[in-house]
């Protein structure tokens, strides 16, 4: 039976974590701070992970700690992008890859919905015109 409640959180970082992982723990604290800001003021935060000096194992630890939530999406534009909500609602991981499958950007966005998933107004306008044209064609076909 489904019950409403907090989603299970996967990580417990020990204070004696491998000393090689220097930058994932401060980053997790920064994410927690940003999540608090989102909760209190609605402020969204984007962290560019490619600007963080990760050592070997840092990224793996970060992603393991964040885990995966119930939403994931794939964007197919100039190569695939994978977007998923972490086990902590409001914390999203966004990985952009190019058409050769190589990573070109890697971000954590603390927001209600990542901006890249929102439909642009221009696209809505163009979509509406396209749908109207399709409907007109259907009606023309029917009348013939």
């Amino acid at each position, binding site marked *: 039976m489904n019950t409403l409640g907090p989603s299970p959180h996967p990580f417990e970082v020990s204070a004696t974590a491998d000393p090689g992982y220097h930058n994932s723990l401060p980053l997790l604290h920064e994410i927690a701070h940003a999540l608090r800001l989102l909760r209190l003021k609605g402020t969204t935060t984007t962290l560019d992970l490619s600007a963080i000096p990760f050592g*070997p194992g840092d990224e793996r630890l970060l992603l393991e700690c964040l885990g995966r939530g119930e939403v994931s999406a794939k964007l197919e534009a100039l190569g695939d992008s994978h977007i998923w909500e972490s086990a902590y609602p409001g914390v999203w991981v966004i990985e952009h890859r190019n058409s050769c499958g190589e990573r070109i950007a890697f971000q954590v966005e603390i927001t209600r919905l990542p901006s890249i998933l929102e439909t642009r107004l221009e696209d809505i306008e163009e979509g509406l015109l396209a749908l109207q044209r399709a409907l007109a064609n259907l009606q023309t076909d029917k009348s013939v």
Partner: protein
Amino acid sequence: MADLTTGTLGDTLRRNGVSRRGFLKFCTATASMMALPPSMVPVLAAALDNAQRPSVIWLSFQECTGCTESLTRSHTPTLESLIFDHISLDYHHTLQVASGHAAEAAREAAMQASAGKYLLVVDGSIPLGNPGFSTIAGVSNLQILEETAAGAAAVIAMGSCAAFGGLPKADPNPTGAVAVRDIVTDKPVINVSGCPPIPVVITGVLAHYLTFGTLPELDQYSRPKAFYGTSIHDRCYRRPFYDKGLFANTFDDEGAKKGWCLYKLGCKGPMTYNACATVKWNEGTSWPVESGHGCLGCSQPDFWDAGGFYNALSIPVGDISRTASYAVAAGVALGAAAAGINRKTKTEANRQHSTVTVDDLEKTS
């Protein structure tokens, strides 16, 4: 030759079927590449959408073609190809199809068509010792640089040879090699140093010019601060080991296996400013320090003559880790303590450094 006036970057992208989400993704990756904060993405999107197509002339002098190799090995072909599809690369020895008189005619045509507006990229140093050391179509490097720079909006010195003289300028500098900035003094010159520069740093600088039509903020060596603003040491993931006084003493000791700081093995990270620690190399796979080798300091002036690659920046007196722990106990920052020790011994270390000649090598072989 490409048409110099075919619309904006936004037009180019739309012609290539790039959607608005795709464009936003492109801007996100470009902002990341230019080391701009993610909050700048909307500003970047607006600027890139309206960016005009610039003409670029690329001159190669005393160089090894490593800079061009680095650029063409960029690991983000979508991004690079979009940028390079958009700029009009009107002259580049290695990449252009034309050769001989046709190649030189292309350069002259681009210089006339975009006088005062084109971007001049130079890789390689310029020999002043004898014009015959390096010529193109029988014309000296110095003469070509002077006449091409005269009509440029700005000059980008690509790689450590163009930026600082590089390897050709290494002692005893047999060709009298100098940097671009020694010749071009009346135009903005931006140095993109490195041997070679990191590919995304090259494209990041071009993207900045493309986006904003201006050169980025520069440091004391005329390098873009976005990429050269912090030292390798300060951004190194091994830095915490330095702070704790944990060093590898050989390349195969326990410290090396545990990934401790490579300072004692000659790492030049503390005096080197570049983006290797975050941008990394080979599709972001790794970088020298992560691979277990110290930084050579290739983006700094005269790095080739800065002492041996495997000599510590200075030779610590006694055991630095023990000395450092005393300093911490005394409430003194480790970095300051190490720097003090370094200064004390640097003069002596320099005095003891002797040049290795071919004769010396023959004696020992």
